[in-house]
């Protein structure tokens, strides 16, 4: 492989990987066993970035090499993180959200009875994300808090109102006769 191309291959590998990538791994992938050559390529990329004033660099860390941003750009990375919409929901959060959407108003113990696991932390997250809200207290002993979904929930899912939520039966219809068997592909 010609030198410029080899360098770009390494660059691409460094780019796609979230974790530091080791020399051994690069050797395995490229099938080029010349450690010196690989090191030179890595160094070359870093230098090129530096000379041309790019915002990226290659660092050696935790036994491998990693493409990261230069320290002086940290303020912008932070600004980007700050303005990012709280973007991700865990599967358990999604589960709790689904239970609340379909069963609201509902208290925590009922959610937990359905899911079979403690849901305190997840409920807190959903409250913080403004996907659910407290809708009142249930008139039973201890007057536990009841939860329901918010307008933010509706808009996140593009619903005009709760009546637009498909019923479980409709869902089974979409899913076809198979109902609960979500078999992976139907790629022929």
């Amino acid at each position: 492989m010609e030198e410029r191309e080899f360098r770009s291959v390494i660059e691409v590998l460094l780019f796609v990987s979230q974790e530091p990538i080791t020399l051994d791994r690069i050797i395995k992938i490229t099938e080029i066993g010349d450690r010196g050559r690989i090191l030179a390529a890595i160094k070359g990329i870093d230098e090129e970035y530096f000379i041309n004033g790019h915002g990226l660099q290659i660092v050696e860390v935790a036994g491998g090499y990693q493409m990261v941003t230069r320290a002086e750009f940290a303020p912008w990375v932070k600004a980007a993180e700050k303005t990012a919409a709280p973007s991700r929901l865990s599967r358990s959060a999604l589960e709790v959200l689904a239970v609340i959407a379909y069963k609201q108003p509902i208290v925590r113990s009922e959610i937990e009875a359905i899911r079979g696991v403690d849901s305190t932390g997840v409920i807190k997250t959903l409250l913080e994300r403004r996907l659910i809200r407290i809708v009142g207290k249930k008139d039973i002993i201890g007057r536990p808090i009841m939860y329901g979904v918010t307008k933010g929930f509706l808009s996140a899912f593009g619903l005009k109102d709760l009546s637009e939520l498909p019923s479980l039966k409709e869902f089974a219809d979409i899913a076809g006769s198979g109902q609960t068997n979500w078999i992976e592909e139907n790629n022929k």
Partner: protein
Amino acid sequence: MSYSVKLEVFEGPLDLLLHLIKKSEINIYDIPIADITKQYLDYIDLIRSLNLDVGGEFLVMAATLIQIKSRMLLPVTETEDEEEEEDPREELISRLLEYKKYKDAAEMLGERGETWSNIFRREQPQDVKGEGDFSLSDLSLFDLIDALQKVMERVTDSSSMEIILDELSVKDKISAILDRLNIQESLTFTSLFENEKTRSTIVVTFLALLELIRLGLVCVQQLEDCGMIRIFKKIKSGGTDGGEGV
């Protein structure tokens, strides 16, 4: 006679017809219906002879073709207007053309997808908890219901648990009944349910009534057996002489 039908997987009867038309290099606007019908039926026979299932929609199309063919055989009544007589093939042709548009578009999408599958983004950071996580921006209703379905599967192997969408909570209904009692002195039992159409809202309304009675906010009176049941707002001043409690 030998025919060489290549055994392919067709998406449906329209797909098969397009294939036959293309193979025979005939004009789609002037399909020789007898010929195409024969080829179509031959293909279905072939599939059957291989003991493969022929989808119902293929059979429906076969019937349609035969029907068109027989209509074509009817003598054409002479009319002044040359274009007046409707071509029995017309509807089929327009369906074929419509389908063809999307079939081509699908092919183009496929090629484009192929190209783009060679372009990679950076690896997404793993969720700390190791749970599959979802970007809020592309969460869909499907994910939501799918999540619910998974919970249900996990938890209720026993009798199926029904999830009803509560359009109305007992709490809301309680306030609604109290609101009405602020305007009217009493309500009949049946009037409470006049506007309730679904089973769940009827149940909710009934639960609300029971709750109101339990909380001592209303009292209920029935003067004779099977007679009209009336609901009164309880006056604060105490004294439970508002009638026979239920």
